[in-house]
């Protein structure tokens, strides 16, 4: 009998299917890996298991008994613990308090609490003082505390969501050892990771998800890394990208040499030419956004050189980048791209007010003309330009961000996930805007987790993996397999060499 069984789970978000009839079973004493591309539905499935989301259809069974999880607390009581990538610890409380948080007795006996905490941590093969503050611990030790917390709640099922993404190699190996020990104690483990070498090292079974559906369940001895990659990808290229108008690719506009950032991204060198659309691919967390943000001056640069129009360029803040004609459409539209409560028109002119102001005061007629022009040019569907941006659909909100930079008129446009959360119709329109920018002689760098999008749009695709630029794909080599092999394969090789 399975420890937990997810049967025929379907879940939609505002009409878009995230999961369609997905099955997943976990036995006691098993490590069951879950792999798939970004957006394949792994996180959604685990949210259903953790009680954070209720499925539209399908059943969750625990020990063969169908249950309706009412929320995360219910799931925890039933022995299911999820260890998220962003850890849910209280940094200013002690290790012991964190482990027993939520179950602290009304009268806390500190001595006993610490003894219990120490016992749990020792069981994991670590020695962390129970009185230490969590904020003083290394990331690896914080993760140990998270696991101890799950054990304190007598978890029968523990879900690890990308646990090694933030760990050094040695710590990652120790984590795998902990997981093996937990398995030996009969705990069921769900293991989510992009690092396929780890998956092969630790899993008993591997489930592959793609576009919200099961592809297959395999055992590691009967599959290779290549097999897995092939299963994760292979979506047909849709015809939505349109034709790129004939564009002559001209001189180098932006040249990045050995860019090195304080957040572990390094050794990044590339060029962007006039009229060129270049993709930046790789998995989430491979350092793509970090590179774009650094070139835009949003994050500091440690080492390396950037040249813009052949002149040195080292932006200390986005203002300097915009002044030199470098624009960024950020990854998080609502958090970084637009001011949601502010009027549509004001968002559009925000980045360049010179043409619509006199002595710092807005000229209403001039501004309206600019805004009307942008609305028509970008085909924004809106009620009235004085409505807040929040009244627009995701696709039209993204068009407002694009409109801002159309108006500002930079030569280098960096687009980070420009079509995330955008419906198909608006996507096609955004693609044609990207083509238009290229035809105007701008240089574009596009980051996307939808690899088909990169292949459909870009003249060439740079591939990142674990903070390094791993290579470049030309249109003849375009395949998701090649991309993932470059991104994951090269990184895995790195690690093996380092271990050997």
């Amino acid at each position, binding site marked *: 009998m399975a420890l937990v069984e997810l049967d025929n789970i379907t879940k939609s978000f505002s009409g878009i299917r995230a999961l369609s009839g997905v099955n997943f079973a976990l036995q006691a004493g098993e490590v069951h890996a879950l792999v798939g591309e970004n957006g394949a539905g792994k996180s959604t499935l685990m949210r259903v298991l953790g009680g954070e989301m209720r499925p539209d259809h399908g059943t969750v069974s625990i020990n063969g008994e169908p249950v309706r999880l009412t929320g995360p607390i219910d799931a925890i009581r039933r022995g299911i613990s999820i260890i998220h990538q962003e850890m849910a610890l209280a940094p200013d409380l002690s290790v012991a308090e964190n482990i027993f948080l939520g179950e602290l007795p009304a009268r806390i006996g500190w001595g006993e609490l610490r003894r219990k905490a120490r016992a749990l941590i020792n069981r994991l093969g670590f020695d962390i003082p129970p009185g230490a503050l969590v904020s003083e611990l290394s990331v690896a030790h914080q993760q140990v505390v998270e696991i101890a917390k799950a054990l304190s709640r007598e978890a029968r099922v523990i879900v690890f969501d990308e646990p090694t993404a933030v760990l050094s190699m040695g710590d990652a190996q120790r984590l795998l050892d902990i997981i093996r020990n937990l398995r030996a104690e009969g705990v069921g483990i769900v293991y989510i990771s992009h690092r396929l070498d780890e998956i092969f090292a630790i899993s008993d079974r591997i489930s592959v998800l793609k576009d919200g559906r099961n592809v297959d369940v395999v055992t590691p001895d009967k599959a290779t890394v290549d097999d897995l990659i092939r299963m994760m990808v292979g979506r047909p290229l849709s015809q939505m990208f349109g034709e790129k108008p004939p564009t002559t690719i001209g001189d180098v506009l932006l040249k990045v040499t050995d860019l090195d950032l304080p957040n572990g991204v390094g050794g990044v060198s590339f060029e962007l030419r006039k009229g060129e659309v270049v993709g930046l691919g790789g998995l989430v967390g491979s350092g793509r956004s970090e590179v774009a943000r650094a070139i835009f001056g949003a994050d500091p640069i440690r080492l390396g050189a950037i040249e813009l129009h052949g002149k040195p360029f080292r932006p200390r803040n*986005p*203002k300097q980048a915009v002044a030199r004609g470098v624009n960024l459409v950020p990854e998080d539209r609502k*958090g970084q791209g*637009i*001011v949601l409560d*502010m009027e549509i028109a004001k968002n559009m002119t925000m*980045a360049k007010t010179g043409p619509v102001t006199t002595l710092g005061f*807005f000229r209403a007629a001039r501004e309206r003309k600019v805004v009307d022009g942008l609305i028509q040019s970008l085909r924004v*569907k809106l*009620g009235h330009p004085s409505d807040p941006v929040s009244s627009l659909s995701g696709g039209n909100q993204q068009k407002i961000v694009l409109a801002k930079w159309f108006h500002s008129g930079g030569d280098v446009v960096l687009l980070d996930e420009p079509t995330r959360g955008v419906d198909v119709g608006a996507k096609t329109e955004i693609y044609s805007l990207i083509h238009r920018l290229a035809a105007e002689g701008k240089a574009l760098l596009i980051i996307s987790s939808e690899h088909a999008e990169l292949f459909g749009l870009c003249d060439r695709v740079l591939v990142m993996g674990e903070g390094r630029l791993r290579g470049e794909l030309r249109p003849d080599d375009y395949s998701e397999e090649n991309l993932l092999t470059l991104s994951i394969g090269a990184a895995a090789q790195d690690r093996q060499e380092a271990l050997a």
Partner: protein
Amino acid sequence: MTDDAANVGGHRATDSRAITEGRLSARRIFAQFGTFAIFIVLVLLASTQSDVFLSERNIMNVLRQMSGIGIMAIGMLFVVLTRGIDLSVGSIAALGAVSSALLIQQYPLPVAIGMVVALGAICGAISGFLVAFLRLPAFVITLAMMTAARGFALILSNGQPVMPGADGAPLSAFGTSFTFGFPNPALLMFALFAVAFLVLNYSRFGRIVKAIGSNEEAVRLSGIAVSWHVMAVYVISGALASIAGILVTARSGVGSAQVGVAAELDVIAAVVIGGASLMGGRGGVINTFIGVMILGVIGNIMNLAGVPGYHQQVYLGVIIVAAVVMQHGTSFLRR
């Protein structure tokens, strides 16, 4: 294309969006006129309680009394819009009161006033620099400035009221006389509110200040120097607090370091009654003015009705809560 043109022409794309828009605008209307409604109700209520209330003399009295709070409320509004707070305004007003009484004895009036305003602006610049560039919490920094500026005022005045003597006559003349039937301090307040209205609603600076309170990161990533704008609102607040302090000296003829004790609380109350959100991004100049007037009317009517001072404080607290609940109550319930 025809489809798009229709949408641009003011049609709503979908029904569900129309509903959200409707709810948004309902909330906006309430935020716009809720404060004004409260003010009207208060005035009507007050006029039934006392015959004196609507007399010209009483109205002018309220206006003059509230001119200092009103001027400081303008600066506070700008600070609050950026999601900040300025607790130092009362103390900077005291510094303004004392230093103006001292400086007019040595310099021509315009020079002296310029120096006093600059002094307030410098105090604001110090707080503003620490908040905007070093990312220190505004509450703590302006709390520190509150004690420091008060101490500075006490040092300058030696703890004694400063009598400017004959040199103070022109300033006193300004502070105690009327123009077009209005007390001069009230006229100055009106003028500053008018300037603030133009700046907040029609200038690049005002638009950016509001946007910073809504989404600072998006403003920064649009290539705008957020820190300078944040610092600037504290400079404005400090300069306006100084002017409020000068007005006290002008009205009373004495520069005292005891001016404006706990005034920051009245100022914040006025801004909040005016519907500004301490979470930033929301608030208007006209509503802030009405907020100031509401505060003034409440105090005035309780005086006229003979409510004892200690009781007044309790009622004031209750009324502030009631005013804020009336403005925000429905949105709280919805969440």
